[in-house]
């Protein structure tokens, strides 16, 4: 292992991608040059210089970039302007993500991202943008295997690393391949529902921002004025957008979660997904400390849930930690049980005063709006205020079932190994975490909670979001639960019965 392997280069095919990728940022200056030059041959000459410059820059960057795996580290060398060598010790590597954006896929290339669990943004992570797919798979195998071997030499973690696996066959087991018809569950989650509005907003913004340059600003302005004078058209447009919501949500969801496959490979869980950009995320199995199961109201009715893994030292865990998209609950629980274990205890309800608080919060704001609007209605005798009163009263009425459901969601439990907390209604989330992942407890009590005699108990976990809350537990539960899960931590501070 002591011979120094030569530095490897990215695939030259990446040169086909780089200039294309630079185009959007070059477009404005290029168009500007052409306009300023009045489309003279000189201006075309300058624009050509710009394009050639971009290509040359890409070539030089490619030629001066190299990487290699040497001994126990990965070195990424850049010498474009100044020489820089980024060294990533293999033992620090926690996961390797392989993504293939559309252009990369066309050329058989991939982007390899190395996750070191460093919290300082992207600073300490490594990225190889434009290796061939085969090289990406090879490197991923080498890095992950060596990373584990390097850790195994470290006596502290030797006991939980696997015994020296022969590097020969990368055994792989598909845990779940989500059938395509389950993609139909996607819009139930409520995510991406606002896509049409975001798209329309973006288009309008662009029209005004770029309209100036491209000479149709007046046109856009006239169009918006005309629309303003025909409110029925605006209402129609909004209606179309609303009707488009589930459709767009389904499309977006399909694009991101196409052929979601969860595999197990040499101590890693690998999640692959995506239609246009295919993404593969590797989570080290022994770093998984728990899971979180999320369902919105519509998903609950359909019996489907989304699942995230709670992993130590995983940045951007919201997108990278996803174990499963929308799948039927029993399957999700089964997969979670394989990764973490089965949570085998009932959730304990929170005291009834928690229900009052949920109801108050769900109803009071809308009710306050209704009262204020009614007051204004009386003062100004304008019919519009009364419409607002009715709308606010409807929202307040909906708050009653919402508050009750939010109370029903509340719960916490412990089965000797795993503990769990649950809350939320429109988006209900249940976290299940191993006891050994707990690094501390926090009790919080606002002034209102003190008057109601309840507290929020937060389990500090060195993974995932960092803290998982049991909202509005009684005083007995707030002390009793930590004392039950980690008795040795609480014992010194409990009042001894006299």
């Amino acid at each position, binding site marked *: 292992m002591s011979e120094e392997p030569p530095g490897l280069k990215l695939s030259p095919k990446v040169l086909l991608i780089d200039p294309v990728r630079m185009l959007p940022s070059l477009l404005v200056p290029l168009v500007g040059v052409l306009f300023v030059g009045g489309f003279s041959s000189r201006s075309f000459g300058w624009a050509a210089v710009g394009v050639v410059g971009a290509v040359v820059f890409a070539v030089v960057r490619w030629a001066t970039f190299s990487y290699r795996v040497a001994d126990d580290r990965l070195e990424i060398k850049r010498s474009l302007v100044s020489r820089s060598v980024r060294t990533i010790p293999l033992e620090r590597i926690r996961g390797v993500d392989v993504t293939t954006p559309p252009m990369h896929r066309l050329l058989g290339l991939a982007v390899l991202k190395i996750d070191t669990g460093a919290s300082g943004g992207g600073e300490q992570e490594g990225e190889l943008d434009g290796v061939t797919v085969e090289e990406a798979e090879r490197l991923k195998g080498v890095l992950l295997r060596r990373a584990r071997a390097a850790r195994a030499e470290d006596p502290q973690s030797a006991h939980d690393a696997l015994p020296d696996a022969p590097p020969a066959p990368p055994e792989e087991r598909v845990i779940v391949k989500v059938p395509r018809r389950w993609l139909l569950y996607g819009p139930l989650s409520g995510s991406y529902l606002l896509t049409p509005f975001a798209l329309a907003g973006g288009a309008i913004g662009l029209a005004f921002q770029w309209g100036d340059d491209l000479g149709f600003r007046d046109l856009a302005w006239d169009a918006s004025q005309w629309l303003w004078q025909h409110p029925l058209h605006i209402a129609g447009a909004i209606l179309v957008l609303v009707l488009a919501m589930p459709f767009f949500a389904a499309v977006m969801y399909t694009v991101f979660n196409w052929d979601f496959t969860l595999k197990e490979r040499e101590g890693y869980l690998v999640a692959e997904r995506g239609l246009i950009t295919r993404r593969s995320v590797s989570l080290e199995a022994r770093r998984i400390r728990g899971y979180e199961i999320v369902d919105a109201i519509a998903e609950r009715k359909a019996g489907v849930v989304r699942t995230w893994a709670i992993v130590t030292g995983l940045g951007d865990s919201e997108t990278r930690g996803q174990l499963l998209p929308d799948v039927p609950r029993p399957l999700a629980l089964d997969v979670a049980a394989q990764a973490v274990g089965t949570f085998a205890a009932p959730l304990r309800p929170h005291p009834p005063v928690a229900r009052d*608080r949920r109801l108050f919060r769900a109803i009071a704001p809308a009710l306050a709006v209704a009262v204020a609007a009614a007051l204004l209605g009386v003062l100004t005798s304008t019919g519009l205020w009364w419409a607002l009163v009715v709308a606010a009263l409807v929202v307040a009425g909906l708050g009653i079932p919402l508050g009750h459901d939010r109370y029903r969601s509340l719960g916490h439990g412990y089965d000797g190994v795993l503990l769990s907390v649950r809350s939320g209604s429109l988006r209900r989330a249940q976290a299940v975490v191993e006891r050994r992942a707990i690094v501390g407890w926090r009790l919080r009590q606002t002034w209102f909670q003190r008057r109601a005699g309840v507290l929020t108990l937060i389990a500090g976990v060195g993974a995932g979001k960092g803290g998982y809350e049991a909202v509005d537990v009684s005083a007995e539960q707030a*002390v009793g639960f930590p004392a039950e899960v980690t008795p040795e931590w*609480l014992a010194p501070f409990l*009042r001894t019965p006299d």
Partner: protein
Amino acid sequence: MGKPARPSKLGSVSEPPGPVAGSLRDPEHRVSPKAVRLWLLEALIAFVIFAGGSFGLAAWIPSWSWLPEWLSGNSWLVPVVVLVPGTPLLLIEPFVRYAVHRWELSGDVVYARSGFLTREWVFVPVSRIQTVDKAQGWLERMLGLATLEIRTASHAGSSTIKGLDYTIAAGLAERLAHRAEELRDDAT
């Protein structure tokens, strides 16, 4: 909101707030008495800023033409609204905080209580501590106080103890760092 289960403890300054969380006892040590001065100074600075801002706003509002007459004509209400609830809070806060803020290190667990309107109890086992920092702002340096920041892998499992006497904070930081080194069991 539910019926008040117990009378508000806000007014009773002399008596330390009771064990709201059932059978939990109070942490053993109070913070330094000088912390009262620290909180008073901090509250005073905030008070001056808010009072100044509210008077400034009151002087400025009458020139806003788009406000209806009955609003812009009564701009003196702004400082009243700010100062009437603000003044008693300013006077009470340091003493309530001194009564609430307590800490203890027992059985290799740090137990700390803090807060004013919102109270917090934190339990951090020394074995899970990653770093122990002591920090001093310029007010704290003036008063010979320090803040101890005990960090674990989770923000919810981390603790900040404010208003400690500098020598006590330094000694505690030293002790915690030393003991954490001994106990180091890497659960995360």
